[in-house]
C-alpha cells in the first residue's frame, strides 16, 4: 500500500508540473491522468471513468492572463488513487456501487481550491528569484538564470508531490471509516447522484461551448 501511495504521488507531482510550469502538453488533464494513475494501480477502467467525469466537470477551467484557476490535476490524481486503492476495502451492496465513488469525489473536490491558494503563494515567492537575478546578472553571474529555472521547476514538483502524498495518505486512512458511518438515505442519494453525474458534466460542457 505504501509503495502504491508513494508512486501515485510521485506521478502526481510530475503531472502537476505540466499544469503550467513545464510543457503544458496536457498530460495533466483529468482525462489523461485519470487513466494513467488507474493503469499504474492496476485498474485502467476505473481511472478512465473517473478521468472522463472530472474532465467534463472541470472542462470550463481556463487560465486567462494572471488568473490562476483551481487545479483539476491534483483532484484527478488523489480521487482516482483513493477510489482504486480503497474501493475494495469498503463493503458495499450491489445497489450502492456508485455511492463510495461519489463520496470520494465530493470530498476531494475542495483540494482544487486549497492547491490553488498554495500555488498563488509560491508564485508570490517566485518574485524573490527575480530580485536575486536583478542583483546577480549585472555582476556577470549569467549561469544563474538556468539554475533558478531548474530549482523553481523542482519546487513545483515538490509541491505537487507532497500535497498529493498528504491528501492520499489522509484519505486512505480516514475515508473508509468515515464512509461506514453514513446512513442508508445518504448512501442511496450518493448512488443516485453518481448516476446523474454525466448530466452535470455534459451540461457544464454545453455551457462552455455556448458561452464563448
Amino acid at each position, binding site marked *: 500500500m505504501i509503495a502504491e501511495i508513494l508512486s501515485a504521488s510521485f506521478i502526481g507531482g510530475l503531472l502537476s508540473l505540466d499544469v503550467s510550469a513545464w510543457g503544458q502538453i496536457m498530460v495533466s488533464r483529468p482525462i489523461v491522468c485519470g487513466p494513467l494513475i488507474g493503469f499504474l494501480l492496476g485498474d485502467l477502467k476505473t481511472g478512465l471513468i473517473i478521468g472522463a467525469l472530472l474532465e467534463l466537470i472541470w472542462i470550463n477551467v481556463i487560465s486567462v492572463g494572471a488568473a490562476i484557476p483551481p487545479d483539476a490535476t491534483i483532484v484527478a490524481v488523489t480521487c482516482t488513487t483513493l477510489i482504486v486503492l480503497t474501493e475494495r476495502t469498503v463493503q458495499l451492496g450491489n445497489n450502492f456501487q456508485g455511492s463510495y465513488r461519489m463520496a470520494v469525489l465530493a470530498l476531494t473536490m475542495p483540494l482544487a481550491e486549497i492547491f490553488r491558494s498554495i500555488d498563488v503563494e509560491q508564485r508570490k515567492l517566485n518574485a524573490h528569484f*527575480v530580485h536575486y537575478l536583478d542583483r546577480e546578472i549585472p555582476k*556577470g553571474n549569467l549561469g544563474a538564470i538556468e539554475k533558478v529555472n531548474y530549482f523553481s521547476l523542482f519546487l513545483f514538483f515538490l509541491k505537487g508531490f507532497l500535497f498529493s502524498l498528504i491528501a492520499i495518505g489522509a484519505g486512505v486512512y480516514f475515508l473508509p471509516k468515515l464512509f461506514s458511518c453514513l446512513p442508508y438515505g445518504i448512501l442511496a442519494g450518493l448512488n443516485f447522484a453518481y448516476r446523474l453525474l454525466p448530466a452535470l458534466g455534459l451540461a457544464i460542457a*454545453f455551457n462552455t461551448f455556448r458561452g464563448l
Partner: protein
Amino acid sequence: MCIIIFDPMSNRIINKSDLYRLFWRSFCLQAVWNFERMQNLGFLYILAPVLNKLYPEKEKRIQSYKRHLEFFNTHPYFANALVGIVARLEEEMALGKEVKPEQISTVKMSMGGAFGGIGDSLFWGAWRPFTALLACVLVIIYLREWEGTWLPPLIFLFLYNFLHFYTRIKGVMKGYERKTEVVGLLMKTRYPRTIWSSHLIGLGLVLFAVMVILLRDWRAMERLYFLAFFLSIVFLNRWRISSAKLLYLLIGISCAGAYIF
C-alpha cells in the same frame, strides 16, 4: 529601407539548429512564473543560448540579459512567435543594424498582449475543451464494450498536441523569418475558423452524448431526472456557479430526493 536591401540569406549568426534549441527550451517558459513580472525569467531562459552566441563580449552580453528581465506575459504557445521575432531583432542589433533596445521592448509588450488574446480564445477556450470533450464522449459511448482502453486519452493527446506543437514550431520559424508580419500571417491561417467550428461541433457532441445516455436501458423516471437535471444546469448558466458548487447541489438534491421518496 535597409531591411529590404538586406539579403536575408547572408550575414546570419543564428542557424536552424539554434532555432530548434529555442523550441526545446520554450517548454520551460512558465517555470519561474511570478506575480511581479510573470514570464520574464522563462523568456530569458529560452533566449539565453542565442544571446550567448550573439554577444561574445561579456559586457554586451550582460546588457542583453538585463534587457530581458523586464515584464513579459503572453500565451505560452504563441510566446514562441515572439521568441523568434526577438531572436531576429537581437541578431540584427548584434550585426550593427538600426534596432534600438526600446524597439524590442515595445514589440514584446504590444505583441504579447495580442498573442495572449488569440491564444486564450483558441487553445484554452476552444481547442482544449473540444478535444477533451471528444475523448469524454468516446468514454461515455463505448464504456460498456471496453474493459479499459487507452484510446480516448491518446486521441485527445494526439489531436490537441498536433495544433500545439505546430504552433510552437511554426512560431519560432516564422517569427524569425518574417518578424512582426506573423500577426498578419496568423489571420490568414485556419485559427479563427478553428475557434467557432470547434464550438459548434462541441455543442453537437454534447447533445449526441445526452441522446446516447437517454437511449440506454434505464427506467423512464431515471431518464426524466437525467434530462431535467441537464436542462436545469444549462439554464443555471446565467448565475455563473462554479463546478464544485454544482456538484454539491447535485448531491444535496439526490440525498433529499432519496429521503423523500
